[in-house]
């Protein structure tokens, strides 16, 4: 066998080994829990479009001094004025915000709806609410990018339901319905 043939054989063997390693490694890569369901919620801190301070951790802290029936469930909704799915789900969110969730005993479970603008301008967010209604707090501004990444959001709309303990119990990608939210809440 000539040196050229040896060199070619070695290069071919290395190339094949390299491709095999890359293929195998692809299957072993880190795959994070995109759902975040069962994990503690990342914190949400920011300012609403109306200038109010929003702090998810504070809501959860207050839960600790309350009996379970009075503890607040938080629904975090990532939305944008440019997103058609957000218009579709808006009526259900309005219902959730205005009616809350009533349990089998007829007791209203304390709930809080928090909006987070996803890749959107504050003026467009205000215009969106002026057109469609709703007055729940919505985080706007530069903090929204960090919050979206903390929740591993890919696009809008996405909604997370956070139990009073701080654990995420539901993640909905795409338009959320009042029923999906209410059936996951108990008090």
């Amino acid at each position, binding site marked *: 066998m000539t*040196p*050229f043939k040896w*060199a070619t054989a070695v290069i071919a063997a290395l190339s094949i080994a390299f491709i095999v390693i890359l293929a195998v490694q692809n299957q072993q890569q880190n795959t994070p829990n995109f759902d975040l369901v069962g994990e503690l919620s990342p914190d949400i801190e920011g300012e609403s479009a109306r200038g109010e301070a929003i702090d998810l951790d504070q809501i959860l802290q207050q839960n600790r001094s309350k009996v379970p029936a009075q503890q607040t469930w938080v629904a975090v909704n990532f939305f944008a004025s440019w997103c058609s799915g957000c218009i579709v789900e808006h009526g259900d969110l309005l219902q959730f915000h205005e009616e809350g969730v009533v349990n089998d005993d007829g007791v209203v479970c304390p709930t809080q709806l928090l909006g987070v603008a996803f890749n959107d301008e504050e003026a467009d967010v205000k215009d969106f609410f002026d057109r469609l209604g709703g007055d729940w707090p919505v985080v706007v501004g530069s903090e929204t*990018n960090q919050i979206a990444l903390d929740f591993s959001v*890919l696009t809008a709309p996405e909604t997370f339901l956070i139990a009073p303990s701080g654990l995420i119990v539901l993640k909905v990608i795409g338009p959320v319905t009042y029923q999906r939210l209410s059936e996951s809440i108990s008090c």
Partner: protein
Amino acid sequence: MLKAKLLRRFSWILLTATFITALIIGSVSRSGEQSSADRAAGLASSIACPQCSGQPVSESNAPIAQVIRAEIKNQVDSGLTDDQIRAFYRTKYGDWVDLNPGNDGIEILVWVSPFLIAGVAIGGMILAFSRRRDADTDNELSDESRKRVQELRTTYESGESHRGQNDRE
């Protein structure tokens, strides 16, 4: 003959010098201080958009790519290192979003294998050329050829001696 040998040696020296100079210039210009915008642009071109298939966030118009681009700039401005920023996106969306292979474990092969393959290829070529040159210089004449050379030499020498005698006469 000597001139050709010198010229060949000079061209090899020139080639090696060019290669080394290019390496030095390349490494020096990279190690210089980068602006935060350059760093952010570099990171954005080596972090994949999680919603697209392998496209870097710098080239994608997906909303999440725009969010990541803006956030990379914030992270660079807030003093995070490139490694910390990459680690953040790997944690959030998986290792696959980091388009730059790491420099440990199996991923080191990505950096090493080009040099390994180039080394094997160059080594093979050098070996092949040197063998061919040895084969050219070590060529033995066959018995038949040697006999023919001997005959020609004898004929030439006898012809020379006859011419010498005639000249003297």
